[in-house]
């Protein structure tokens, strides 16, 4: 068995093991590493880990235009439902339409300055068009 300076076994030399065993050993290794950190750093790591564990895999953060957020909050309150469920309810149809190419993002895409994304979407144009379309339909 290889041992490092602290008398701990090296984790790197494991052969192929059961994923559950690997996961528990990984956790043990992380605990050992954290135990060597200064107290403030250790507590920061612990908080970070707790926050990450609380995060649900189906949760995403969305930046919504302020007016849209207000409208959604208003609707959710009026209907007495959670806002996240209301958004999920409203999204099913356009997601299907986009997947089946019944609608397209063409015309709304603008160049993005961010290296992570190729384009941004012109949400103001989309809001104006939807509002205009509604007015036309009512009249």
């Amino acid at each position, binding site marked *: *068995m290889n041992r490092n300076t602290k008398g*701990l*076994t090296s*984790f790197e*030399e*494991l*052969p*192929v*093991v*059961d994923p*559950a*065993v*690997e*996961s*528990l*050993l990984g*956790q*043990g290794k992380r*605990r*050992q590493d954290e135990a060597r950190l200064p107290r403030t750093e250790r507590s920061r790591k612990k908080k970070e880990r707790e926050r*990450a*564990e609380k995060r*649900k*895999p189906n949760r995403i953060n969305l930046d919504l235009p302020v007016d849209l957020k207000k409208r959604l909050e208003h609707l959710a309150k009026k209907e007495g439902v959670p806002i996240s469920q209301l958004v999920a309810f409203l999204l099913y149809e356009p997601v299907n339409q986009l997947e089946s190419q019944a609608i397209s993002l063409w015309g709304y895409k603008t160049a993005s300055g961010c290296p992570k994304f190729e384009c941004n979407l012109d949400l103001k144009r989309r809001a104006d068009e939807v509002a205009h379309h509604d007015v036309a339909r009512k009249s």
Partner: protein
Amino acid sequence: MHTTMAILNQKGGVGKTTTAVTLGSGLARNGYRVLLIDLDTQGNVADSLGLPHSDDLRRLLSPDLHFPLEQVITSSGIDHLDVIRSDKSTTALKQTLAGMTLREYILADVLESSAHDVILLDCAPSADLLHFAALVAADYLLIPTRLDKLAVNGVRDALQTLAALQRITRCQVAGILPTFYERVTLESHEQLIHLAQTFGKLVLPPIPQDTQCRVATRYGKTLWDYAPNAKALNGYEQGNRRVGGYLQVLERVKEWL
């Protein structure tokens, strides 16, 4: 056609009976017809299931009694789970069998007629005649081990015994099951790494140390009935999933059947 699995470690107190009872009852709950045979003179399988001790095993294997298999099988009270109990009379049985020829085949022969899907052999913590008979009768060997040096030595001894019987058994090592795992102690962690480095994929997800196992035995209940939320069953919480525990081991065992 049944699959026979011997649960064996020459070191005592490593969780052999708890493993046999928990996996046996777990498989039974999954619809498998399971026969659990106690090969230990202490008769702890009966205690764990809340049954009285009996000389079922002696009546089955003793050459002068030689009861048919179906007459010594007792229902455990759990659907699909039958047991063959043991008690102090097993000591006398071993002495009787010692003078027989082909005694290593005695279990394999009597179990041939079994209509069960799975047969689990809960072995005694000693290298005796029934221990060898179990290895000859078994298709798979499961070795539970505590995560301490002495118990891990027991794994080595079990493997040596199996190697010595290589010519007369088809038994393969199915897995090494770390029990009494404490994720916060360095010794548990070190021994698990040691096992994983030596045996690789044979090391099964560990069973967390859990007092509920002892309490369930005291009440003569299986963990599934007494404490379905026990850590020993469900493993440790790790983010959004559970790691280790008999539930995860049961899934591995079902892959061998």
